């Protein structure tokens, strides 16, 4: 029982990380039909700079931790915005070329991170509470899991509220459905493009800081390794669907954890298998193309 609870908590924590990456991917794809390969780099940069700030302050203090989270989100939003403005926008509506540019960006940035911070992982630490455990139904759950899950839920709620309650949220939801008609109402949909990149980048940067606490290190390949699972999550959840991304994040991470434990480390294969099954049964993913 306690193993089960531990796996559940760890799986949910991992699912929360997947969601922080997949939410942006899914929104960007839904609105712009761009698959953003550079999303992992937004995450990695957020993690590195977040850690750098925490180190300058005091990594074991909550102020340092909160600052690192904020910096991570800010850095993610900033590079994502720049990416959209400088690289994506000039290739307006040429989706494949836009994807290729993000591929190039991810290659170049990972190499750059390796040049700056080295190829080895930097082990990090945070406030002592994060490394302690809390007993739940007999299982000792590391506290950082709770924090990561809480933050991901907050991000989900914040994005949903934004999409439901604001004019730009409305534009994004409408644009996911029918972008041409949004422009035919006199709305410059490009601002919404920059906005989804910024939101996605912020979630990824934030996810980067949290991921570095979950795994205990930062490295230039941190983002890339999460990105592949986030891709799988977005396809299974249905490209362009935020709720789909949330549901699929949890399902994929739990499946992965349980398969790793009970089926001899086969988690990654089980997920790819799940992807194949979903594609055969429902090519549009669990929730198809729905925004929020």
């Amino acid at each position, binding site marked *: 029982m306690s193993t089960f609870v531990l796996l559940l908590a760890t799986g949910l924590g991992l699912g929360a990380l997947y969601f922080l990456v997949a939410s942006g991917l899914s929104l960007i794809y839904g609105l712009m039909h761009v698959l953003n390969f550079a999303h992992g780099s937004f995450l990695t940069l957020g993690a590195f700079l977040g850690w750098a700030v925490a180190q300058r302050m005091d990594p074991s203090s909550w102020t340092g931790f909160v600052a690192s989270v904020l910096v991570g989100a800010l850095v993610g939003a900033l590079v994502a915005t720049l990416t959209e403005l400088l690289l994506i926008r000039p290739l307006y509506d040429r989706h494949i070329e836009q994807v290729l540019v993000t591929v190039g960006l991810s290659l170049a940035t990972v190499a750059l991170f390796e040049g700056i911070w080295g190829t080895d992982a930097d082990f990090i630490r945070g406030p002592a509470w994060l490394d302690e455990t809390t007993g739940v139904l007999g299982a000792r759950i590391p506290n950082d899991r709770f924090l990561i899950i809480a933050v991901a839920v907050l991000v989900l709620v914040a994005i949903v509220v934004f999409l439901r309650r604001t*004019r730009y949220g*409305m*534009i994004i*939801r*409408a644009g996911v*459905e*029918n972008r*041409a*008609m*949004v*422009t*035919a*109402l*006199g*709305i*410059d*949909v490009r601002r919404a493009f920059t906005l989804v990149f910024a939101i996605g980048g912020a979630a990824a940067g934030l996810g980067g800081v949290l991921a570095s606490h979950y795994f205990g290190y930062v490295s230039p390949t941190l983002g890339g390794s999460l990105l592949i699972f986030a891709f799988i999550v977005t396809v299974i959840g249905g490209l362009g669907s935020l709720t789909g991304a949330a549901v699929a994040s949890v399902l994929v991470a739990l499946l992965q954890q349980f398969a790793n434990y009970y089926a001899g480390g086969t988690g990654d294969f089980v997920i790819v298998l799940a992807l194949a099954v979903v594609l055969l049964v429902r090519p549009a993913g669990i929730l198809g193309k*729905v*925004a929020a």
Partner: protein
Amino acid sequence: MSGPILSVQHLSASVAGQQVVEDVSFTVPATGITAVLGRNGVGKTSTLKAVMGLYQRRGEITLAGERIDGLPTHRVVQRGVGYVPEDREVFSRLTVAENLRLAERQPEPRRELVERLFPDLVARRDQMAGTLSGGQQQMVALARALLNDNRLLLVDEPTKGLAPLIVDQVADALEAASETVPILLVEQNLDVVRRLAGDAVVIAGGRVVHAAPAAALLADEALTQRLLGVHAETHDDKGAAR
């Protein structure tokens, strides 16, 4: 009145690398309803989309004397062109109220006008637009254009697939709107054309083949049949029987 509100000269348009409009020229007078006629697939919708900038276009398009052919779609709209697309294209996962709010471009949108014309929508403001009937969706689509003070409306087959009663309601709304704004109307239902349109432009094979007052065209049965095909006759008969 002064010159035409819209002038289209030598307009060509292509989509997916395929030419769908070829060297089309016509003008829309500053008042009343101008009908665009033609058989299915001749390029009426494409002409409208080209004017809107939704399709790649070449040629000269002026709105009240100003060139708009270089403008992206949202700028064309901001110049005062309202667009009611074929097949409604309402945002099915947004509520009626959200669909309308998204369309509001001016500080004081004409909400009373829309509520007066389409009382049905008021009751359904929180319903998802995708769950509306075809007629109700058409009202949302028209309302989106009528909320703003436009200088021109482009309306594409607003009565397509609607029940006769709803067709009349849509025609009423268009007639009311045409008192304040000129309308370029693509319409297959010749009863509606006869009732509403002043001038008519007939397109065939991506080109304008006829431009004349609508009444004169529709009075000439042979010409109507030649230009618009057999559909014309059935509508014509029905019209005559009334």
